[in-house]
């Protein structure tokens, strides 16, 4: 039962990755691609946590923690570059 739910969650996360890549490819402006970067970073954090649950190795949660601490940096740098040029 729990394995079925985890497999379903992994399938939903794969669909979300596909939608984020669609926005990255189709996005007409740079701002759309920044939004796609932020979305895919958030999906990656959820996916790493899901892999830690599936494989029962909780050292992987530290990777998600580092990602969550550093994910704002690139989006902030791109936003500042688009406004004034870093």
């Amino acid at each position, binding site marked *: 039962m729990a394995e079925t739910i985890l*497999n379903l969650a*992994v*399938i939903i996360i*794969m669909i979300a*990755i*596909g939608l984020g*890549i669609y926005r*990255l*490819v189709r996005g007409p402006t*740079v701002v759309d*691609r*920044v939004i*796609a*970067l932020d979305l*895919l*970073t958030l999906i*990656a954090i959820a*996916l*790493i946590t899901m*892999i830690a649950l*599936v*494989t029962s*190795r909780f*050292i*992987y949660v*530290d*990777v998600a923690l*580092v*990602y969550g601490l*550093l*994910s704002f*940096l*690139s989006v902030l*740098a*791109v936003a500042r*570059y*688009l406004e004034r*040029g*870093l």
Partner: protein
Amino acid sequence: MTMMTLLTLVLCIGILISALLATYLERRVAAVISAGLVGLFASVTYVILSAPDVAMTEAAIGSGITTVIFLFALSKTKEQPDE
């Protein structure tokens, strides 16, 4: 276990699409964003391949610092005007 294989396939397709976009996009800022996404998908692939220390380093260096350094270099070179 076959679900992890399918997930690895999706992530490798994501790496391929991001690398092609980083090559073919016209705006340089969008190319830098796509090059950062290559590091992001590669980091998740390292986690699936059970190398969490490599994934942590890739998350810090490849996806965080490289984008900032590329944008800093782009702001120093002003040959094509931004929109």
